[in-house]
């Protein structure tokens, strides 16, 4: 009850936070998506590079988010920019890994036939590997978006905006309701995004003859 009350009473504040949150997570998701897919495509052609790159990304992934933010402050200062960078770095793992897995798991006999029919290397990537990997790439993207939205909550600890600001303010002023309201909004936003992306995923899968 209190939560609904506070959401209504301070709707302007929450709306600002929510829009900030969307802006930060969307920027990070797009950055991680673009960089991650390109990286996945690049390393799919070089087995050795793939091991190294995936290894590095895995290690970075194990750094607690709060300390990654701390480590970034001397480099990029405090605020939204640092938050976006940190979130992008975390978002890379699921998307690079899924892109790589999807591209390299294409049935070898299909690849051989496509080559035998006269497909050049670029076309094998654009017409066979990428479309066949698309369902796996999209499911990685979906995981990544949900993770970024949840993690953006921490961004306000380094002065970035978003719903984390509500949580942070609630904690520092012993206002549990405020903290709970911020958390619930993040959860709702994450679930909603997940649901929308699952629709997109279903659409792509249907288009690509899966399920």
């Amino acid at each position, binding site marked *: 009850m209190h939560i609904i009350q506070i959401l209504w009473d301070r709707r302007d504040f929450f709306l600002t936070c929510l829009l900030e949150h969307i802006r930060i997570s969307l920027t990070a998701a797009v950055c991680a998506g673009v960089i991650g897919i390109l990286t996945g495509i690049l390393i799919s052609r070089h087995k050795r590079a793939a091991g190294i790159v995936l290894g590095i990304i895995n290690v970075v992934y194990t750094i607690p988010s709060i300390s990654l933010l701390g480590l970034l402050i001397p480099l990029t200062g405090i605020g939204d920019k640092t938050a976006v960078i940190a979130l992008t770095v975390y978002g890379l793992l699921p998307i690079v890994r899924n892109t790589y897995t999807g591209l390299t798991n294409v049935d070898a*006999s*299909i690849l*051989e*036939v*496509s*080559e*035998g*029919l*006269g*497909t*050049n290397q670029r*076309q094998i990537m654009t017409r*066979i590997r990428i*479309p*066949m990997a*698309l369902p796996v790439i999209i499911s990685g993207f979906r995981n990544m978006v949900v993770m970024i939205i949840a993690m953006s909550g921490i961004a306000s600890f380094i002065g970035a905006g978003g719903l984390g600001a509500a949580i942070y303010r609630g904690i520092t002023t012993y206002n549990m309701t405020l903290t709970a309201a911020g958390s619930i909004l993040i959860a709702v936003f994450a679930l909603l995004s997940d649901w929308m992306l699952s629709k997109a995923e279903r659409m792509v899968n249907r288009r*690509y*003859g899966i399920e």
Partner: protein
Amino acid sequence: MSKVIEIQGCTAVYGRNEVLSRVSLTVEKGEFLVIIGPSGCGKTTLLKMVNGLMTPAEGEVLVNGERLLECDLTMLRRRIGYAVQGAKLFPHMTVMENICYVPGLSRKMTKGEKEALTCKMLEMVELSPDLASRFPRQLSGGQQQRVGIARAIASEPDILLMDEPFGAVDEITRKALQEELSALWQKTGITVLFITHDIGEAFKLGSRIVVMKDGVIWQEGTQEELMSAPRDEFVKRLISK
């Protein structure tokens, strides 16, 4: 008669394993040449030498008088039809997209062109035009194999390579497919290089038959020649099945 495919003293190796030993074979224009032999004797490897999926360690391959080592393999392959066991259709493409795949590699096709080509090819392999929008997984094994053949000949190649294309379909469908392929060959005058391990199929389709054993060509000739003068027990047993 002109030589369409010339395989000259070709040896093929996988690692240290020699799977073809100095094989020579010439295919004339318009021939329906069937290669038969037990599993693992090197039939697929020999076929892949013709479209450059396998490069000989020794010897040379010429297609239409062009040396494979010197030509643009990708462009050459677009002029050679290729159909394999289990069809291996592209699962993310509809029947229409699969059929228009090879011509679509070289140029952008309009929707109208694609539809016309698909219609024509589906008719040629005796499938209903209604199947054009289906995905491969929505087809029976026999239908997939027919689409696989349509995909292989859609750009009107003058050579067709077929690697046990009817190996994965039931007996009745196989008989029908064999008849259709035979009719297609007679109608178009296409040169066919066809692999099978079924001697009945080889006799039914082949204008000439090559028997392989352990990476070498053991005997070649027409059905009559093989029947009347089999080289040894191995050939005798093979053709009496």
